[in-house]
């Protein structure tokens, strides 16, 4: 009996200890802001303190590989920025908080960034639910959230502090339709698209443009992000007798579909959205992706010196060619650095500066500026085809 009681007391103690640890954690952090503010006050006098960008994105979980590619893009951009004197004479750096791209975790990270006076802007998050769950917090606090992969049509609509340098579906999808219908002369299209906000909006826009160019959509099929077995859908596509198969896909699923096309006896031209443009698409797809057409806003053979410089440095540092995710990460960091350098280290000034900035140098959009929808203007497209295991520029 007494043994039992002792045991119970120990348990109670353990429970209380846990509580205490948790509470201590709370109060410990809670008392941070005044201290941090004091530190920030000290910072402004000591101008060599780092200027920080908060990054919210996946380092673990299902989307971890994208967070890793982002980091490469950021690191490369920072090397150049800091070698050129940083922003306003102070070194620029970033804090990467892992959210697993999980909407449960992004609001907390947002609160953390918002209450940290050293942070002047935020980049991220990866998926739409994760990014948009945090947007209201950034908007209310007046801290710029720059989405580098957020093409969701509603993403920038939360408010005037929410910006994006990712491609807009309103430009990308019609350009793909021009490639398929006008340049390649295809008239009977079967469209397969990922069933996400991006995939569905892109498919709608693509079909609208393709039909206006005189093509017929013989099949439209959505598939889930987790889908692996495409044989049933491809069999259906074969029965619809198309002359081109349109893939609105990322590179992993795009390569998977391409591999299963011969298995069902389907023999058509494949045109894939620009998001398949990645060395991974070639590695995963192997021979199956030979002859796939795509278009992209970024290609290593882009003759502009900035682009060439980016590709060279990226290959030197990481031993592989950069893809679009690396390019948008690099661009995002560069855009923030450029504007901060012009307007000074201030959250509000940065927002106003983004609106006014002209001639922003980017890899994905060339020389550009933000439009009234807070997305980059002037997209340019390069047509590509896979030949001998590499993306080649293709001219009609």
């Amino acid at each position, binding site marked *: 009996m007494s043994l039992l009681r002792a*045991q*119970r007391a120990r*348990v*109670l103690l*353990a*429970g209380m200890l*846990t509580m205490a640890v*948790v509470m201590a*954690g*709370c*109060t410990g*952090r*809670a008392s941070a*802001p005044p201290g941090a503010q004091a530190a920030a006050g000290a910072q402004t006098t000591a101008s060599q303190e780092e200027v920080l960008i908060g990054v919210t994105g996946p*380092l*673990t*979980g299902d989307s*971890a*590989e994208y967070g*890793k590619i982002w980091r490469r893009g950021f690191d490369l951009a920072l090397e150049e920025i800091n070698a050129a004197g940083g922003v306003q004479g102070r070194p620029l750096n970033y804090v990467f908080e*892992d959210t*697993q791209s999980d*909407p449960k975790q992004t*609001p*907390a990270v947002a*609160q*953390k960034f918002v*209450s940290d006076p050293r942070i002047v802007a935020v980049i991220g998050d990866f998926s*739409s*639910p994760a990014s*948009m*769950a945090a947007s*209201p917090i950034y908007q209310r606090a007046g801290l710029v959230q720059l989405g580098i992969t957020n093409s*969701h049509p*509603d993403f920038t609509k*939360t408010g005037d502090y929410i910006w994006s340098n990712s491609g807009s579906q309103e430009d990308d999808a019609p350009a793909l339709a021009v490639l398929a219908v006008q340049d390649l002369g295809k008239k009977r299209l079967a469209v397969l698209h990922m*069933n*996400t*906000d991006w995939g569905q909006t892109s498919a709608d826009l693509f079909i609208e443009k393709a039909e206006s160019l005189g093509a017929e959509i013989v099949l439209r099929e*959505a*598939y*889930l*992000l*987790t*889908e*692996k*077995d495409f044989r*049933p*859908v491809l*069999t259906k596509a074969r029965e619809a007798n198309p002359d081109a198969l349109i893939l609105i896909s990322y590179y992993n699923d795009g390569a*998977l579909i391409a*591999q299963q096309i*011969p*298995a*069902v006896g389907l023999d058509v031209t494949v045109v894939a959205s620009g998001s398949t443009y990645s060395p*991974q698409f070639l*590695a*995963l*797809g*192997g021979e199956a992706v030979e002859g796939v057409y795509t278009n992209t806003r970024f290609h290593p053979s882009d003759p502009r010196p900035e682009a060439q410089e980016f590709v060279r440095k990226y290959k030197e540092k990481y031993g592989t060619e950069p893809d679009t995710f690396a390019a948008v990460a690099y661009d995002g960091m560069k855009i923030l650095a450029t504007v901060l350098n012009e307007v000074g280290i201030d959250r509000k000034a940065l927002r106003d500066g983004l609106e006014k900035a002209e001639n922003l140098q980017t890899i994905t959009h060339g020389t550009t500026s933000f439009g009234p929808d807070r997305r980059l203007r002037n997209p340019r497209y390069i047509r590509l085809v896979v030949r001998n295991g590499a993306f080649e520029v293709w001219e009609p």
Partner: protein
Amino acid sequence: MLDQLINGLVVGNLYALTAVGITQIYGVAGVINFAHGSIYMIGAFVGWMAVTWFGLPLLPALVVVLAASALLGLLVERVAIRPFGGAGRTVLLLSTIAAGLILEQAAQLIWGPETKAFHTPFADVRFRVGGGSVSTLDLLILAVGLSTALVIWLFLKRSRLGWAVRATAQDREAALQMGVDVNRVSRVSFAMAGALAGVSGLLVGLYYHSVYHTMGSSASLKGFTAALLGGLGNIPGAFLGAYLLGTTEALGVAWLGSTWRDLIGIALLIGVLLFRPNGLLAAARALLPEPTAGTFIPIGRPLPIPRWALLAAGAAALALPLAVRNGYWLQVLSTAWIFGLLAISLNLITGTTGQVSLGHAGFLALGAYASAILTTRLQVPFAVALVVSPVIAAAIGVLLCYPALRLRGQYLAVATIGLGQGIALVALNWPALTRGPLGISNIAPPSFFGYEITSAAGFYWLTLVLLIGGIWMAERLSGSYLGRALRAVREDEVAARAYGVGLERYKSIAFGLSAFLAAFAGVLLAHSYTYIAPDTFTQALSLQVLTMVVLGGLDNTIGVVVGALALISIPESARFLAEYRFLVYGLLLLLMLRFRPRGLLSAAS
């Protein structure tokens, strides 16, 4: 039609490989091994290394994978099964989940998160069949599936060790008394299932030409479904289930579209289990799949917490925002309170009524979508939506769950995985109501009588007040006739029925009340995120809530709230660990399960 049947058989082949391993483990250890998918994934990686780094041909690579994954199976048995022997199956379920998580995180750290290309190390020849084709790899997969099944069957029927395995499966204690070394039996079967998982990972990796660290989870879910369809523990049943699942999915995809695949699988599973609750090939006189009393869930006694301490803790929590101005911690705590509410609601099902639910995210989604649709489409004020949405969610929740309530134990658990995912899939496939994959954005923040709650402190108070309401409701329920009736269902279904407690009726009440409470959390979530989409409500979220409940202490309202607080704030406090964060989380979970299997705030009764 013929082509689609062939497509179904080809993918059924892949499902069969996983299902055989899962079913075999269940037959022996009586536990659904959630780490199976992770061993499968590591098997694929080991095979990939053997082929692409060391240039081994397929056969030696297969041998390497067999050995490595058998060892891994042994390791999982040693770390996640044996130490938890007497702790009940819910704890085993969670300990295998934790082991799986650790393996998955470790794989990500070792091999990196990006998908690896894995091309067949031999010339793959295609044979035309109908309009499509079948390849040598398809035939190889079929051959491996059949031959392993034959080997296992011969082993179980002909060898002495096989007899021991079957004896242990029938009655562990009796086998022990007859001199069977049950630990050895357990080791052997985990090594075998591990080897099988690894080989199937390798073959499926080759089939899709890719390996990646999360490949195990979806594969194992299909494997569970196939194994359940055929009847757990039944090897020919696993084959039948796998081919049935594959062909039904293929035909369904051809008819409805690819996004319906998983819903079709879920509907097939629940439909079959309704008529044959133990699966297609289970013998009519098979033993009950679960013991009727006591041992499925170990319930501890809540530690006595004096009333004044609770009141003081509540008052301190309420006063916290006055002292703490840090928005970050208020946000973390608000999330913890929302999940506390969710944990209380799951506790009604799992703690009080003794039914394991792995699909609680579905109830959360019902509440969130109901409120989002009401406020954005019909312009209903937040205060009204807050009251109406839980009622809607409870009604839909009961309707959906009612057919599944005849199932017991682990069968119900897997059916709830299906229901939880099914709700998210319906949201995805019904764009007219839910905007499908676009999700619902611009949901207004909570507001009462024109006053909007946008500050971190205001939101903290709102969530805390609702949480306290939830605690009060759960405590009242616990002491009432209803609470006692639900506990009677948990303790002994036969006895409960004998005393006039209708099982399905009371289980429905429990699921309905649980959906009602979970929907409050859903409403809060929707109006806090202001954007919800089907992938906000994931399977991982359901598992997390169950972990909170088990960790806090089953049937212990205050305990599960503490569990939620711990599981939300620990990963947040561990941010400095970066990529190692969820590896450490998995280890902590395993340790807590080992040393406090009845929960943080409960003692052995």
